[in-house]
């Protein structure tokens, strides 16, 4: 019976300049099947299955906000049981890396949330 792996990763994104236009991108890796969604604070922004650049707004307005990239992923690959979600926010610096990667057993599910604080 497949199990469900749940994990949350917290990161801090330091914006470089107030006028920067911030873009976020979510990628479900390892060739696995799944979908992602983005919330800015509690507001739904965008969802999808393929990676996509999502405009979040100017750096000045984002300071103090919370970006959550959540995903459900299914292990459909015979070659590997890794389940990986990566969130990339540009420009600026995200620490630690906004990535969750865990290995399960064949057919497992994963539900991840990457929580990014803008400072």
């Amino acid at each position: 019976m497949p199990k469900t792996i749940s994990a949350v990763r917290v990161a801090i994104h330091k914006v470089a300049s107030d006028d920067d236009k911030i873009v976020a991108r979510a990628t479900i890796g390892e060739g696995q099947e799944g979908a992602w969604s983005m919330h800015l604070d509690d507001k739904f922004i965008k969802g999808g299955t393929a990676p996509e650049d999502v405009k979040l707004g100017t750096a000045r307005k984002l300071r103090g906000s919370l970006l959550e990239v959540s995903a459900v992923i299914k292990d459909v690959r015979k070659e590997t049981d890794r389940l990986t979600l990566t969130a990339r926010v540009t420009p600026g610096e995200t620490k630690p890396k906004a990535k969750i990667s865990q290995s399960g057993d064949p057919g497992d599910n994963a539900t991840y949330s990457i929580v990014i604080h803008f400072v």
Partner: protein
Amino acid sequence: MRMTIAVVAVLGAAAPSARAQEAAVAGAAPAAGAAPAGAAAEADQAAGEVAAEAEEVPEFDKLHTPDSPAFVILGVSPTEIQRPTTPREVSLSLSTFLTEGDSLTIPKNLALEIAPWWLWSHPDLTIDDYGRGGVSSLWRRLTLSVGTATDSVTTTDAGGMAIETSTTDLAVGVRTGLHDGVSRSSCAARVKGVDQKLRALATSTALALTRAQDNALMFASVAAARQAEVAQKLDEVKIDAEDEADIVRDNREPEKREAARALAIEKKKSAVLLADLVEHDDGNVAYQAALTRLKQERVRPQLEALEAVFAECAELEAARRGFLVDGGAAWAWRFPEASASDGRFLAWSAWASASYQTSWLSAVGLVRSQNQKPTANATDNYLDLGGRAIVARKKIAASAELVSRWLVGKDDMDDRDSWYWHLAFAADYMVRDGTWVTVSFGKDFAGSEAGSLFSTANLKWGFGEPSVKLPASP
């Protein structure tokens, strides 16, 4: 007293009821919480379609993996012709593990095959990239294998005494996919409604915390010894003139201005709380743990409904269709009495196999060149052409293969035959998930010599990754 009230107020916000969270998420993300009834019915129908399609895929196509090239060149594979397939990260094959007087014995034949590309994480490889195939798939489907086979040879010395010598053969092999067949799109792209259901699930299982809720969680994670100090800092947070100007400019209605002011305050408090958590590991760990617990609570009741669809998607993904081509090569050395210093080159082989797979029938063709050194001073070159047909239905598969072999460049003084053939029939039955029994029999290349007929009974065990194969010797 004021400080105590502030703490209670913050902690009160720290644990919003499940219903409140559901309402907050549903309000923020109508695609998840309030999916139209029609969409749900469509997704259920999609689930049924996927399940029906998966039901039609024979188990043999979903899980069966071929023997490694190292095993094939050592001659301990049940069949000569391997169907192109998807490699596993690591797989282990053991042969002659059971029996020999009904007792357990150390495996004489051992093969380890790895797909090196998959030993590392590939966070940027999307399911669409994977399905496109192309040149990059050569590297993705590459496997390296190493195998050993132990046997004994009986010879007679000048005095007519029988001498038994044990031999250990070592082989290394390489294999990759030259053509990937029909590109497989994701389950979400292929089946109407699954994409929508997946997106809704990703949205509805999000934490979707308000700024105030997250601040409350962070505050609750601050160590008790520092809470009073942090609470005082939070109490001192004010909106500066620049923010106030923005709020006035962006919000004409008084109610919206008040909401914007409240949010601006929460954002500034967030910076204070984050600074404390970054500085102190205990709080950071507690905050992450609180978020993880909340995530688990959000997820638990929602995944069961889609599990069946997901599982069928995985099975569909494992089965491939269309035209597939694999290429491989292997090299073998022989070590009498397991002595490394007495070792010599034994054989090399290179081959290509092409298959066309439908829902129940696979046809596989083989071209192979072999160079064998039966003794230190003799070299034989062979060219093999063969075909294999596999019929698979549900848990049963049957196959027949015929391989024709030519001895190329034979000396006129050589009285051996120039042509040999190999015929084998095999039947596979899946006893339970991942466990297969294979029975095969036929005639080997050895011409009319005694012992050219063979039969094997193999048991293949799958534990996910790696898989272990336990075939018994003839």
